[in-house]
């Protein structure tokens, strides 16, 4: 396992001249950005249209003839109709709560287990540490396809199915790339800190919480954020494991599948914008943390 994690440090050297290759790349990237921004902008102007204007007025691509924000427009209508997306009539507030519990709880438990296991493997040179490290590498390389049916069966057997805390337990594993990130971080931490603390009478528990964890808190927060975003956006797993505890992402997915009140795209897009607003705010606040903290090296095992 070569270098796994390093804090991202911007280099200070002078900017180089552009070559033909970089000019072509710049053009392709500019087109990419224009398409992406245009897509989001189109979604936004569609939400601001009256459903009738989109469906019958044949104004699907243009700017709205008037901005439909009467009584909150499509956004408020989407929140009011939120319960109609699910058979259990899950309200907006309920699905918001489900999403927070599913995403925040799952992300925190998963990150904590990965961090703690990586710490134990990196700092305690027992045989089990090597076995656990090996298991992570093998699980990453060994492709196991489609164990979903078996996992659902096991979840039902253990009473974890359709329980938010059940998904936390299923996610409380140490497998994955971020174990390696934490492992590299704890391995590179000088032993002098923990040895000094031991001399001062600190036990292993306080060494982890008072010395090692504060030093790893930046990486911990980055991984936590990445996991939270992934779980907040996930609708496929909640669709399978939480058939009656509907998350916001799942309700948005269902809004596109429900007919009747939901056929008008401006209303459907209001659902998508409600879902992505918290994530966009998080991204704007923490984009440096999300984009700059992690690198991985080759996996050799």
């Amino acid at each position: 396992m070569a270098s796994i994690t390093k804090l991202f440090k911007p280099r200070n050297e002078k900017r180089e001249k552009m070559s033909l290759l970089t000019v072509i790349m710049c053009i392709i990237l500019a087109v990419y950005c224009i398409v992406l921004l245009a897509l989001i902008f189109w979604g936004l102007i569609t939400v601001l249209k009256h459903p009738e204007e989109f469906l019958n007025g044949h104004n699907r691509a243009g700017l709205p003839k008037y901005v439909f924000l009467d009584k909150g427009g499509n956004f408020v209508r989407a929140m009011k109709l939120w319960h109609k997306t699910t058979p259990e009539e899950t309200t907006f507030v309920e699905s918001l709560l489900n999403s927070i519990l599913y995403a925040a709880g799952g992300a925190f438990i998963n990150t904590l287990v990965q961090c703690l296991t990586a710490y134990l493997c990196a700092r305690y040179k027992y045989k089990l540490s090597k076995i656990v490290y090996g298991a992570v590498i093998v699980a990453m390389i060994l492709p196991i396809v489609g164990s979903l049916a078996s996992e659902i069966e096991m979840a039902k057997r253990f009473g974890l199915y359709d329980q938010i805390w059940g998904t936390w337990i299923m996610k409380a594993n140490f497998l994955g790339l971020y174990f390696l990130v934490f492992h590299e971080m704890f391995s590179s931490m000088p032993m002098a800190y923990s040895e000094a603390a031991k001399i001062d009478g600190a036990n292993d528990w306080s060494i982890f919480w008072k010395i090692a964890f504060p030093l790893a808190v930046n990486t911990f927060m980055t991984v936590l954020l990445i996991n939270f975003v992934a779980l907040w956006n996930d609708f496929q797993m909640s669709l399978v494991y939480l058939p009656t505890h509907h998350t916001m992402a799942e309700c948005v997915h269902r809004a596109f599948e429900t007919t009747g009140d939901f056929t008008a795209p401006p209303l459907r897009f209001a659902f998508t914008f409600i879902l992505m607003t918290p994530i966009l705010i998080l991204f704007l606040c923490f984009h440096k943390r999300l984009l700059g903290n992690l690198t991985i090296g080759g996996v050799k095992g």
Partner: protein
Amino acid sequence: MAIKKKSIFRAERGSLIFYSLMMIWPILQFCVFYIGVNFNSVLLAFKEIDPLDYSKYTYTFDNFTNWFKGSSWLELKNSLGVSLKVYVISLAIGVPLGLFFSYYIYKKMPLATFYRVMLFLPSILSSVVLARLYQYFTDWALPELLAPLHIEYGTKDVPTLFATNSEYKFVAVMAFNIFVSFGTTVLMYSNKMSTISPEIIESAHLDGAGALTEFFYVVLPLSFSTISVFLVTGVAGIFTNQINNYALFSFQAPTEVVTVGYLIYNKTRHAASINRMPDFPFVAALAVMLTLVAVPLTYGVRFLLNKFGPKED
């Protein structure tokens, strides 16, 4: 001396107790939800569950052989073809583009930071948000936008429902998948590239290396350890990639875009939603067969990359 030995022993015993206690949960979880689940998946593949009493079952090979008969075989053959096509296209277009984008960001060319943020943006938005925006834009807005072209230049009719219901749906779905695929890879590649020593780049410049030479002979080999991680783990993606079908089409994806990953997910989700346990073994059998193909394939690619891929040293 004896007191010192005793205190060292006590400290080591304390560490061992702490280590053992802290390891209980991770090991237990791993045993149940990795080893147990996968072992159960193999067992499940051989089961024939009684549709009237789910606790009763017999063992059979039918779950395996039934995949090679009638409509199931046609379904599997089609999805395997689509999955392979997706893998080749992603490898031929997505990977090189991702590497060139990373190189651009690594070289800190104009707007590099902005492009980095924009390339990562699709990764933080839910696939259902972006997929539906794309689908509705191509289905509804694109035909309206391109309609004047048709009048002015007499081009072929702009198909309505471009992504959902035209002869171009595979192209449309692949374009979307490549479009949203750069986030993590570009981030990891460019971070890895930024660890290359500036002295190496400078000496390449002194030797007269241009941008292409620098990219292919310096940057690519020195970043290869990271690239190979994605290439190796990507092999299993042939059988797991759902190409955002569920976000785009829910459970009604057109045949032309159905991949093996989508087929497995959709069949499992359907069985789970109506609580039909007897359908699980059929899906588990396919999963076991595909794992048996994916394992040697992954290790083969890993072996080839280690043997013939560029070396950092």
